[in-house]
Every structure is written in structure tokens, then in C-alpha cells.
């Protein structure tokens, strides 16, 4: 057996940058500072030891004399993980959502978000009440709304109010495709599409949003944690109603208020997730109702790194497996403590990343897809042969990598981990090559069949269940039997119960748009809303944020300590 370890391609790149030299060099100037004394910790040991020796008169720590002076050695059955693409090493436990405030905040930021149209309300005000709507009145309204949304009182005098410090994450901004209108609204309230997005994406978004005006609303984290996702639209609608009444000096009881309410609660509302059937018993804005296309729009990596659709898709995998596997299936649905181990396989140790970039090289070499310059122009027609070829090659390569490098096989010691990762790389490669989400999903299912036959094993029962019948429903689109990938989601009939899939499916959908440099996948409104730099969680860097959460560097919202005696 010649090879034991895989080449850590991505790691070596990072190392090279760090040491600014050839990593094959055995000598570097970096450490030549004087032996033991270069280590601040060792120096500290020696100083501390000297004090103890003076006090007790017996010699102690002396690494120069006894070079075996307490060499610490530990035993581990599990290894630390590197959160892929971050260089941060963490423990599995650090990636459990309960231990990781960044993970919690990512989900909080989705659940507490609602998008509400303003045009309907403006029409009511103009046509029914004859009120004038101007940029000035809109600014006035937004000032009032940003007072009311976190829980400040308007209209009535004797209302109780929330403490501003516990709801400091709550605010409202607006956006429109009409640059002229956007320019007239106070900067603090505007999500400026032209500034936030690369030109091509901005153009696409502005065109899609047009002249309509939308409110991107984030209710307080603490509210959505205490109540639920269904609260978000209700809480926001209540404050919207009150703010309109105040801003436009309406009579609180007049009938037009009902129209404003209807617009804010129903007609003009974009939920982040649709409500679920009774057997899954959740309201809107809960994870099971998020469509993959919408989730792909929430993640913003393609906005920040438009020239790397693979990376952007891998961030969707990370964010998606965290939300759908760890939180949704792992806890909401199963009632367990979360399927962390399944999910982390897809966003740690750069394994999926390496398989996926192999796919990128392959589609570039064979199909001339210039994936680093995403555009609709060079995409390959998604025929069955193309899907079979790309997914087949990526699957074979990934299987061979596991075979060639036993440490990789031991890292992903269970079949489910391997199956998810191999199929994801296959699906993403097809998605990027063809810009067709269903072709990508079809590639995933071919990968599953090939994997199972090659190794005579696959994953846990869920892989047998949905992945053996997936070929059949991946391209046909008929009610209750199939759907285009963008509209599928964790509640899609065949996907509803199996861990290790949904985040990857969302990423396959995402890849098919990122590869075209589309401004959005399914909803321009959601794409713009999550581009907001004021959000506590940075949706452009989910994996980096998770890593920060793991090493105690992420500051989440919904804090209650202010309200309690100090511990």
C-alpha cells in the first residue's frame, strides 16, 4: 500500500500563504528564534517554576536538563475537525447547534425575518383616504416603524415597552428596484442593491423587483425564540399597522386600517417558509417549509464571491445541513439531540470541497465550462448522457479517493457520511455544468446507485428509501410526484424524513444558478433581504460564522442577561 494520506490540496495552499515559502522546505526562518525561549508558554513555565523552586528549595521544571520533562500526550478516538475552508479546528461538540451561538443565530435570523410589500398599503392610503405618499412620508413612517417594531409604544399612551437593549437586533429596512426612489430614502433604511451586489446580479435583481417597494423586517430574536416562526408576520403586521396609523395620522378605528392589516398579514407578505401539514405541525417560517430555491437565496456567498460557484454552493451545503439536518430533522422532527455527525461530514475537513473541485476541473477540461467566470453562455445541454458522464466520473473519483487514502475512509467511517458527500459532489458538478437543478438532482441519484453497487453498501435505511427511487422523480414534474428543484424543500414528499440530504439538495439547486451568475435563484426579495450587512449572522460566510461560534467568537442576539441578576 503506497499511499496512506491524501494530499491536502486546499491546506497546502493555505500553508504556502502562511509561510511565504515552499512548503516542501524543511527549513524556515519563521521559527529560528532561540529554541525553548521562543515559546512564550515554555518561558512562562520556566519563570513560574523558578519561583516555586526558590520557595520550596527543590528543583522543578527544567526542560533544558530533562528534555522529557513532562511531554504531554493524549489519546483520542475522534479527531478534531477543521471547519471546511476556514482553517479553524474544532471539536464535534462545538458544532452541535446548542453549543454554537452562530448556528442558532443563523436560524433565528431566518425565522424572525418577514418581507412585506409597501405598495398595497400605499395604494390604500392614496386611493381610499386621499393621503399623499412621498419619500418624506416614507422616511417618517420608517422612523416610526423602527421605533415600534422592537416594541416601542405608538398610538396609545399607556402601553408597556420592551427594553431597547434586549431587542437591539430588531429593525426594518426597505428595498426597491427603482434606484431613483431608493436614493430619496434615508440611507440608514435602504438596502442598496447596486452597492450590495455585483453589477450583473444587481441588474437582474433590479429588473425583477421593478418599481415595487418592500420592507425587510427582522423582529427581535427574543420574540421569535419565545414564540415561533408563525409569530413573525403577526408581530410585524401589528407594528406596521400602528406605524401607518401614526405616520399618516389615521384614526385608529377607521376601516382602512383593516386593509392595511390585510396587506401586512396576508396579501403583501413573503414568508421565509410556508406552513406545514398537520402531521408535521408547524406554522410558517419554520425550517421544514423553506423551499430549496429560497434557501439558496438566503445564502449570500455568490454575492461576495461571484467567481466561485463551487465555493458558494459548498457554503449552502454547510448552512443547509446545519439547518435541515441538525436543527430541523435532528431536533424539531426526531426529537433527538441533533444529527450533528451526519451533517458535519459535509462541511468539515475539506473532503466535499476536494471532490467538488475535482468535478469543476473535469467539467472545465471535458466540457469547456469556464466555471470561474459564471455566465449562462457556456452551459452544457443537460442530456442524460451528460448527467451520467459527469456524475459518474465524480462518483468514481470520490470512491477511489476513499479507497486510496484510508485516513479519509476512517474520517468518514460510516456509509451515510460517504454517500452524502459523494453524491453532493456529483450533483453540484452537474448543476454547475448544466445550470439545471433537476439535472443536478439526477446526478445525485446516479451517484447513489453507483456507490451502492460498487461497494455493496450505502448508508442507513434512509438512503435505500429515497435514493433508490430518486432517479424516477428527479426529472418528471407532475403533481405530488415531482417538482423543479427550486420549489422542492424539506417537506417535499420524498425528502421529508431523511437526514443527510436536504442541505445538499439546496446546494445543488443553488449551484445551477450561481453558475449563471444569476442575481437570485427563486426570490429576488429574499436574496436582497439577506444581503443586509446589519444582520448579526453573515449569510455570505456561513461556515466561517459556525467556526466563530465554535471558538467563542460569535456574538448572538436575543440576550437575556441584562434582565437577570448576574451569576
Amino acid at each position: 500500500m503506497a499511499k496512506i494520506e491524501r494530499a491536502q490540496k486546499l491546506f497546502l495552499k493555505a500553508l504556502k500563504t502562511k509561510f511565504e515559502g515552499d512548503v516542501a522546505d524543511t527549513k524556515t526562518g519563521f521559527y529560528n528564534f532561540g529554541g525553548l525561549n521562543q515559546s512564550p508558554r515554555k518561558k512562562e513555565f520556566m519563570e513560574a517554576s523558578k519561583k516555586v523552586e526558590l520557595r520550596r528549595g527543590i528543583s522543578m521544571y527544567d526542560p533544558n536538563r530533562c528534555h522529557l520533562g513532562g511531554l504531554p500526550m493524549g489519546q483520542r478516538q475522534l479527531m478534531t475537525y477543521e471547519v471546511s475552508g476556514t482553517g479553524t479546528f474544532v471539536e464535534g461538540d462545538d458544532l452541535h447547534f446548542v453549543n454554537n451561538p452562530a448556528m442558532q443565530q443563523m436560524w433565528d435570523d431566518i425565522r424572525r425575518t418577514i418581507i412585506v410589500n409597501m405598495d398595497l398599503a400605499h395604494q390604500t392610503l392614496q386611493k381610499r383616504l386621499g393621503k399623499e405618499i412621498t419619500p418624506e412620508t416614507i422616511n417618517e413612517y420608517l422612523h416610526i416603524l423602527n421605533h415600534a417594531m422592537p416594541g416601542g409604544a405608538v398610538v396609545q399612551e399607556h402601553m408597556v415597552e420592551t427594553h431597547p437593549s434586549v431587542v437591539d437586533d430588531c429593525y426594518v429596512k426597505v428595498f426597491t428596484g427603482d434606484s431613483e426612489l431608493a436614493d430619496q430614502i434615508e440611507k440608514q433604511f435602504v438596502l442598496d442593491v447596486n452597492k450590495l451586489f455585483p453589477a450583473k446580479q444587481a441588474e437582474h435583481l433590479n429588473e425583477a423587483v421593478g418599481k415595487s417597494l418592500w420592507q425587510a423586517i427582522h423582529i427581535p430574536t427574543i420574540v421569535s425564540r419565545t414564540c415561533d416562526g408563525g409569530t413573525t408576520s403577526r408581530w410585524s403586521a401589528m407594528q406596521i399597522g400602528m406605524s401607518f396609523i401614526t405616520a399618516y395620522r389615521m384614526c385608529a378605528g377607521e376601516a382602512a386600517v383593516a386593509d392595511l392589516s390585510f396587506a401586512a398579514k396576508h396579501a403583501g407578505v413573503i414568508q421565509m417558509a410556508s406552513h406545514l401539514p398537520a402531521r408535521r405541525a408547524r406554522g410558517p417560517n419554520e425550517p421544514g417549509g423553506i423551499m430549496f430555491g429560497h434557501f439558496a437565496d438566503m445564502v449570500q456567498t455568490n454575492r461576495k464571491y461571484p467567481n466561485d460557484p463551487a465555493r458558494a454552493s459548498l457554503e449552502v451545503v454547510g448552512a443547509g445541513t446545519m439547518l435541515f439536518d441538525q436543527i430541523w430533522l435532528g431536533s424539531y422532527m426526531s426529537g433527538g439531540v441533533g444529527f450533528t455527525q451526519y451533517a458535519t461530514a459535509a462541511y468539515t475537513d475539506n473532503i466535499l470541497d476536494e471532490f467538488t473541485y475535482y468535478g469543476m476541473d473535469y467539467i472545465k477540461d471535458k466540457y469547456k465550462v469556464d466555471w470561474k467566470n459564471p455566465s449562462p453562455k457556456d452551459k452544457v445541454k443537460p442530456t442524460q448522457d451528460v448527467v451520467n458522464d459527469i456524475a459518474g466520473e465524480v462518483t468514481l473519483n470520490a470512491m477511489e479517493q476513499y479507497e486510496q487514502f484510508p485516513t479519509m475512509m476512517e474520517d468518514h467511517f460510516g456509509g451515510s457520511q460517504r454517500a452524502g458527500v459523494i453524491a453532493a459532489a456529483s450533483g453540484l458538478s452537474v448543476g454547475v455544468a448544466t445550470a439545471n437543478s433537476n439535472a443536478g438532482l439526477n446526478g445525485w441519484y446516479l451517484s447513489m446507485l453507483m456507490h451502492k453497487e460498487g461497494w455493496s453498501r450505502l448508508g442507513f435505511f434512509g438512503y435505500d428509501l429515497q435514493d433508490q427511487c430518486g432517479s424516477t422523480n428527479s426529472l418528471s414534474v407532475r403533481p405530488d410526484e415531482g417538482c423543479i428543484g427550486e420549489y422542492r424543500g424539506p417537506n417535499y414528499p420524498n425528502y421529508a424524513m431523511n437526514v443527510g440530504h436536504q442541505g445538499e439538495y439546496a446546494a445543488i439547486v443553488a449551484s445551477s444558478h450561481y453558475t449563471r451568475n444569476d442575481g437570485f435563484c427563486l426570490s429576488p426579495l429574499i436574496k436582497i433581504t439577506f444581503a443586509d450587512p446589519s444582520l448579526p449572522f453573515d449569510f455570505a460566510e456561513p461556515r466561517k460564522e459556525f467556526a466563530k461560534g465554535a471558538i467563542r467568537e460569535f456574538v448572538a442576539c436575543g440576550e437575556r442577561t441584562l434582565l437577570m441578576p448576574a451569576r
Partner: protein
Amino acid sequence: MAYTPQYGPGQSIVAENRRKQMNPNVKLEKIRNVTDEDIVLILGHRAPGQAYPTAHPPLAEQGEPDCPIRKIVTPTDGAKAGDRVRYIQFADSMFNAPSQPYQRTYTECYRYRGIDPGTLSGRQIVECRERDLEKISADLINTNLFDPARVGIRGATVHGHSLRLAEDGMMFDMLQRCILEGGTVKYVKDQIGTPLDKKVDVGKPMDDAWLKANTTMFHSLVGTSYRSDAEYIEYIQRIHSLRTKYGFMPVE
């Protein structure tokens, strides 16, 4: 037209081995001779010589309802006697173990009646009536489906299929149910890890050449690479393509 099962595609030795294991007309190659008593010890469900505990009275005594299906299906010996349902579970190393989880399941389904196999990535379990199980287990252990070093009989704590082998060639077992001693593998614990009063010898580990020639798993480093069996790949892709097409319910 009578259908002749083909058992699977492929031109490689792996494909051929798979077909041979599945095809009930091919006799499994007997390689070792673990006695019935020793198999009972490894299984750990009952003491050798102990009567079979029952889950229900013998069928002849309990009065069968008038059911056409029961008339068609001849009960197995174990079912007839009312035996409990018991199990044997295998962990197969990915380093050329002769049988592998799905392969085991397919093979058992073709060769045995009254069984309930369960297939996972790291282990494969088959359940059936106890006396039937002992007979089937004898086949599974004494023939070319088994290798003493790279197949583990493990009722629980099965971790090992994806790990590197130990220095002595044994697959890792956190309960070390068997040890290599004097050139042969001896079970010192039953399949769930209870120590045995006597060591059960299951024979000499097969050598690398035999394993490579008899395995049913593709492996590009230690065995036959999957990629090299073009017919196999083509066939799977064909199945996938046809299934995809069938999603549209093409009119024949």
C-alpha cells in the same frame, strides 16, 4: 418464455464472484469445518444441547386457521416448531472481505427461505427462526462467504468495516471477539461480546491473493477497480437512465 436470472452485470472477477454467490445453483465452496456446537457458541442465543426456546406452540398443535396462503407456503423447520426469531450479524471489512452487506442480503434471499435480512453500511444482519438460523450460519461461516480475519461475527459494537487492518491482518473489533493465535482465528467471545468458556477455532485467515480473487467489493487500491469494469458501470447508468425515463411514463 422462461426467465433465466443473470444475477448481475460485469466482466470483472468481482462481478463473477457476486453472481456465483447469489446463484443458488452454484454450490458454495466449503473451506472450513466449524462444528454445529461451536456455531451455537458463537451465536450465543442458547447453550449447546439446550432445547430451543419457543415463541409459540408447534404449528401442528396450535391449530392453523383456514388460510390459503398457509396452504401454499411450507413452513420452515423452525417455524413448524415455534422457535424464537434470532439473528446473526456480520461486519465485512472493505479490504477485500469475501462478502459485503448488500451482497450478503441478495445471496441469502436467493438461497434461503423464511429470512429477514437487514443491510447497513457497516454490518448486515439476518434474522430467522433459531434452528433455521443455525443451519444458515453454518453455511455463512464454513464457506467462501467468510474469512476469519476480515469478517467479524458481531451482534453489537460493529465498528471496523472502514478501518485499516491491524498489524496481524485482523479487522479492528473493539470487543476483540476473536484473536489470531497459532495461525488460526479463535473466537473468545460470542457475537455480542460475552466471554466463551472455550475458544472456538474458525480456521486460518485466507491469504491476500485468495481474498482478492474472491471478494465481491471493488477497491482500486487492494483489489479490482470499479472503473475497470466498464460493463458494470454502463449497466448501472443504463438502469438509472431507464428509471429517469420511466418518471415520464413513456407509452410503450
